[in-house]
């Protein structure tokens, strides 16, 4: 009988095998999601070493509690929830965001205000010729200015292409809250990257 290629196992099959102590199955899950998890973590905490540590810690935690995974959400939703929470804890621990509850009203007032990162750095010279790297760096800085939960939704949407319901599931919030956070995050990013959006700059 030919052994099934482990790469063909579904997430839930691998999870079940992990529960029975199959380390190879867990390795498969790690390999399947390591890049995605790292990307989210990097977007959240910026520092590549911290992001790698968080990715590792996330998988360790998943392994520790895999017996509690009930399969009512997808495995990656559960994994993301753990990783996003680790990122938020990391940001809080490092004093990047002291406040537990970000005041949405404050954010509303801030949204769309000001001249943004690009304009403040480039003055009023729309013909400035920015490379892809620099533009991405400006985006990264703009992302860093977002509160953690807003940061999480925009990354999940833009990098992972997650649906509203998957994001709601992952963050344990309503779809309405997802929409609202996504909207605020986009507003803030648009304000920060206004010169690029006005068409004077291009990623090409």
């Amino acid at each position: 009988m030919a052994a099934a290629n482990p790469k063909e196992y579904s997430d839930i099959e691998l999870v079940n095998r992990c529960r029975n102590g199959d380390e190879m199955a867990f390795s498969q899950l790690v390999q399947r999601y390591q890049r995605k998890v790292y990307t989210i973590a990097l977007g959240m905490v910026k520092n590549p070493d911290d992001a790698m540590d968080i990715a590792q810690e996330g998988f360790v935690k998943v392994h520790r509690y895999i017996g509690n995974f009930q399969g009512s959400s997808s495995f990656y939703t559960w994994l993301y929830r753990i990783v996003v929470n680790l990122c938020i804890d990391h940001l809080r621990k490092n004093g990047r965001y002291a406040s537990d509850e970000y005041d949405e009203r404050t954010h509303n007032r801030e949204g769309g205000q000001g001249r943004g990162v690009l304009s403040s750095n480039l003055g009023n010279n729309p013909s400035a010729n920015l490379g892809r790297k620099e533009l991405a760096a400006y985006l990264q800085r703009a992302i860093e200015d977002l509160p953690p939960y807003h940061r999480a939704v925009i990354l999940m949407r833009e990098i992972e292409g997650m649906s509203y319901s998957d994001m709601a599931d992952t963050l344990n919030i309503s779809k309405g809250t997802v929409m609202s956070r996504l909207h605020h995050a986009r507003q803030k990013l648009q304000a920060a990257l206004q010169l690029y959006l006005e068409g004077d700059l291009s990623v090409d």
Partner: protein
Amino acid sequence: MKQDEKILAQYYDGELNERKSAEVKKQLDSSHEGALALENMTKISQLFQVLHEQSQESTSFEGFDKRVINAIRSQKTPVPFSEKLRVWATEFFAHRKLVWIPAASVAGAACVAVLAVGLQNSKQMIPTMPDRTDSSTWQASGTTDSIVSTVAVTAPSEMNVEEFSLETDNGQRIAVVWIDE
């Protein structure tokens, strides 16, 4: 968030059904403002892709899975039951929002009823805390006037908790709880 902005974002994110999506598409043909907002969202998405590509270019995941497995092996201590219960409950309730609120209310009401009946019958306090519970009020150890603070502690079972009643210079007693990690 304005209604049209909300719809536009849903349209951009592919969250609308076919009919609604077609409606928005039609409206966009005649709305310069809408088309511009859509273009901005697209440009932001493009930038995210650039950022994503850059972050992936320089990252190697070679041996990452082995590092994870090693970390798991080095941390193999049993998970405390209370922690397991907490994770299980989080997972359970996260996906049963419509069920757990009424269920919790019913369970809560049942607990109150049981407690009330129990109290009436035995006139004794029934311990109900899931973890170790240390309740301590020093009303019994001195005159009420001299006791000016009290504490009751509920802590995870793995922690040792001890309460003290310390006397101040003016003879008052204040409560101190010592939590040994």
